[in-house]
């Protein structure tokens, strides 16, 4: 007890917040001030250990913190005011919950005696954010604040990571209380995520893997979240077993795209070979992925002949969408390490030559093919060119949501984890630009590129002003086709080509806009100009808006049409009107 007391220091609630950030090693936070957080901003003003990045809209702060977190593996921290400050955070919180990103969001609240009175800028922050956080707290007593802050960091970063909210009324920020550094008793005893996989289940998994004839490894964001060790062990596992590997959108980079066993991304816009391997395999090893509906396609026809092993740290991911044979609850890195140990001791690489031959045949279909043009820039070509010219550089890629995101996933080769930041689960347009800000704050000397669409990028465009203020040289590479391309693609395929509100009739002149913000605008309209323009973009040490004018009506293939299985993919070469109509038959709009 005396030990405990010795560590305690008296200070205000606002000072506790800044002190806790320091105690948790936080160097940067993203935020926007307002009435209910002024005491905390006053504390921030009087120190220099924690740098505050002022955004232009709270949503920008949230996505920037997500980008920061995903590119470093550290928690992202956000500070916003009550009411609209908190409600503007709902989108990034939900985004972080869906993609398992550790975020700690501190919100101001009206003074405790006004809570429930419809006070100015009051909202029920814990009520509103309850379904979009891993956990949240309203702190009514300053002496609870240190415990709650420490628990918040612990909950956000352990188990399946996720966003948390700590709501602090203004009077609690002013009140004096006793602060203590993080200690074990700060955390609910009921919260104890399981890290180590069950030994018996791991043994069963190994015996299944050792006898596989047509195996496939399907990895996801959980491998990235399990730290640098996760990707290292995944590579070792692939090498030790000799199995083919595919990843979800969230898992790209854990296994290098140039690796010999790489099948490409799987799912709705994944490669033919990845999806066919998933469909025809006899043993599926799923690590840190959750059988999301963009991955499975039709669930009752999903990989019908396979035994499935599922490694996940969250027990609620098991048997949620797809029934599996061997569930293993635990941290991806920890379980892979055990799997490898048992595999090396008790099993041999199975002979799967015939399976690789089959895969080579699927690969030969060249499912990512597209028709090159000399007159207009094809979006796929633009990303290939961007990849070519940034390859080997210290590059981080973020994206918005839509066709450009899928093309980026298909055509940009990721060699390392933590280099690819995209909104997977929630599909948040406007994610990429502020996320790039956060990445650039964490990696000031790296090349950070947001592969964007003309529609998405306008949702959080105001953050260019933040980039200019903090001299963050982010590159916004806009594939400008003047459409909400993915919406239009669905309307073409499923709604009788009635392009309802998917055309942007009044786009800004992005080059002039860049000028207005005080950054650099570059435009490319012809394939021949592209290389020079991209080189110029890379060279400029300022934020850049790159207006890449691409073919307006290009669509994203290959594709698993809705309601179809993995082996019913629509390939680009076959995607003429008739085949498309047939693939989507049953869609009433096409009748």
């Amino acid at each position: 007890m005396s030990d405990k007391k010795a560590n305690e220091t008296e200070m205000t609630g606002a000072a506790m917040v800044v002190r806790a950030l320091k105690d948790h090693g936080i160097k940067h936070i993203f935020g926007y001030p307002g009435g209910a957080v002024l005491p905390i901003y006053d504390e921030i003003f009087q120190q220099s250990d924690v740098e505050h990045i002022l955004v232009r809209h709270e949503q920008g702060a949230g996505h920037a913190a997500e980008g920061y977190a995903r590119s470093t593996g550290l928690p992202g921290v956000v500070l916003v005011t009550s009411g609209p400050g908190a409600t503007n955070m709902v989108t990034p919180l939900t985004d972080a919950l869906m993609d398992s990103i550790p975020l700690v969001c501190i919100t101001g609240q009206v003074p405790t005696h006004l809570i429930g009175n419809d006070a100015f800028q009051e909202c029920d922050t814990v009520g509103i954010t309850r379904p979009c956080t891993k956990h949240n707290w309203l702190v009514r007593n300053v002496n609870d604040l240190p415990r709650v802050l420490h628990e918040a960091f612990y909950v956000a970063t352990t188990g399946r990571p996720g966003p948390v909210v700590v709501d602090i009324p203004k009077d609690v920020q002013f009140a004096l209380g006793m602060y203590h550094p993080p200690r074990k008793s700060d955390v609910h005893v009921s919260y104890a995520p399981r890290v180590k996989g069950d030994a018996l289940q791991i043994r069963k998994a190994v015996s299944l893997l050792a006898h596989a004839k047509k195996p496939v490894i399907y990895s996801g964001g959980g491998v990235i979240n399990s730290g640098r060790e996760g990707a290292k062990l995944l590579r070792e596992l692939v090498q030790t077993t000799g199995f083919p590997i595919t990843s979800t959108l969230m898992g790209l980079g854990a296994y290098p795209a140039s690796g010999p066993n790489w099948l490409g991304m799987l799912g709705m816009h994944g490669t033919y070979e990845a999806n066919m391997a998933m469909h025809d395999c006899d043993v599926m090893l799923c690590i840190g992925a959750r059988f999301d509906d963009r991955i499975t396609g039709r669930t009752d026809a999903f990989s019908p002949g396979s035994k499935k092993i599922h490694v996940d740290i969250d027990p609620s991911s098991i048997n949620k969408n797809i029934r599996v044979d061997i569930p293993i609850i635990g941290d991806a890195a920890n379980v892979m390490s055990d799997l490898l140990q048992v595999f090396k001791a008790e099993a041999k690489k199975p002979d799967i030559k015939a399976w690789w031959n089959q895969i080579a045949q699927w690969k030969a279909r060249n499912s990512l093919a597209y028709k090159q043009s000399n007159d207009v820039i094809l979006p796929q070509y633009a990303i290939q060119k961007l990849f070519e010219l940034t390859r080997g550089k210290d590059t981080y890629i973020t994206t918005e949501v839509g066709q450009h995101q899928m093309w980026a996933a298909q055509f940009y080769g990721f060699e390392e984890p933590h280099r690819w930041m995209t909104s997977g689960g929630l599909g948040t347009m406007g994610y990429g630009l502020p996320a790039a800000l956060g990445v650039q704050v964490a990696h000031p000397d790296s090349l950070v590129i947001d592969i964007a669409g003309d529609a998405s990028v306008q949702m959080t465009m105001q953050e260019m002003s933040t980039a200019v203020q903090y001299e963050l040289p982010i590159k916004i590479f806009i594939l400008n086709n003047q459409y909400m391309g993915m919406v239009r693609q669905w309307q073409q395929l499923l709604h009788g080509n009635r392009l309802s509100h998917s055309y942007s009739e009044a786009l800004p002149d992005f080059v002039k806009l860049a000028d207005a913000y005080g950054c650099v605008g570059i435009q490319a309209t012809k394939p021949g100009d592209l290389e020079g323009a991209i080189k110029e973009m890379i060279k400029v040490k300022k934020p850049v808006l790159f207006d890449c004018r691409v073919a307006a009506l290009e669509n994203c293939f290959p594709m698993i049409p809705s309601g179809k299985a993995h082996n019913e993919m629509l390939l680009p070469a076959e995607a003429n009107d008739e085949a498309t109509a047939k693939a989507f038959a049953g869609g009433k709009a096409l009748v």
Partner: protein
Amino acid sequence: MNQPASAYFLEDRHDPNETHTLSVLVANEPGVLARVIGLFSGRGYNIDSLTVSETEHQKHVSRITIVTTGTPMVIEQIKHQLDRMIPVYRVVDMTTAGRSLERELAMVKVKGTGDPRVEALRLAEAFRARVIDATTESFVFEITGNTGKIDQFIELMKPLGLVEVSRTGVAAISRGPEGM
């Protein structure tokens, strides 16, 4: 099967539904019940009955008993989703964990005179319901038992002048010496 134009696979599943009683031990702190109820409404699960009360004052532990209906896969999801909430200590499925006792208490108001009134009192005796309030033209019965017994009692009271019913919902506990 034809499916309308949709970005989602619209599956119709025909797994039969099951009814399960779950006991959930939680830290008794503000908002914990809202978290549990929010989980059910947010994910589209059913609540047939819900009972909450603090059971260990010193340790701030409350016990929530939930009766829910769903396919086996959904019931499994509900248990995992509850279990991963930060203030939840334990989730036990009383329906599969072995033999358990389930009880509900109901207060049943019946109005009437003459033969129906006598009949109501006679049935109450048969059901071991107690009279806890009486006027010359009404009774309030207190009855405890499992859900089926109470449903049946209420059904019998309907033609005899049933006015209103207040029920606690199900509380459950396992048989034998072990706790949850």
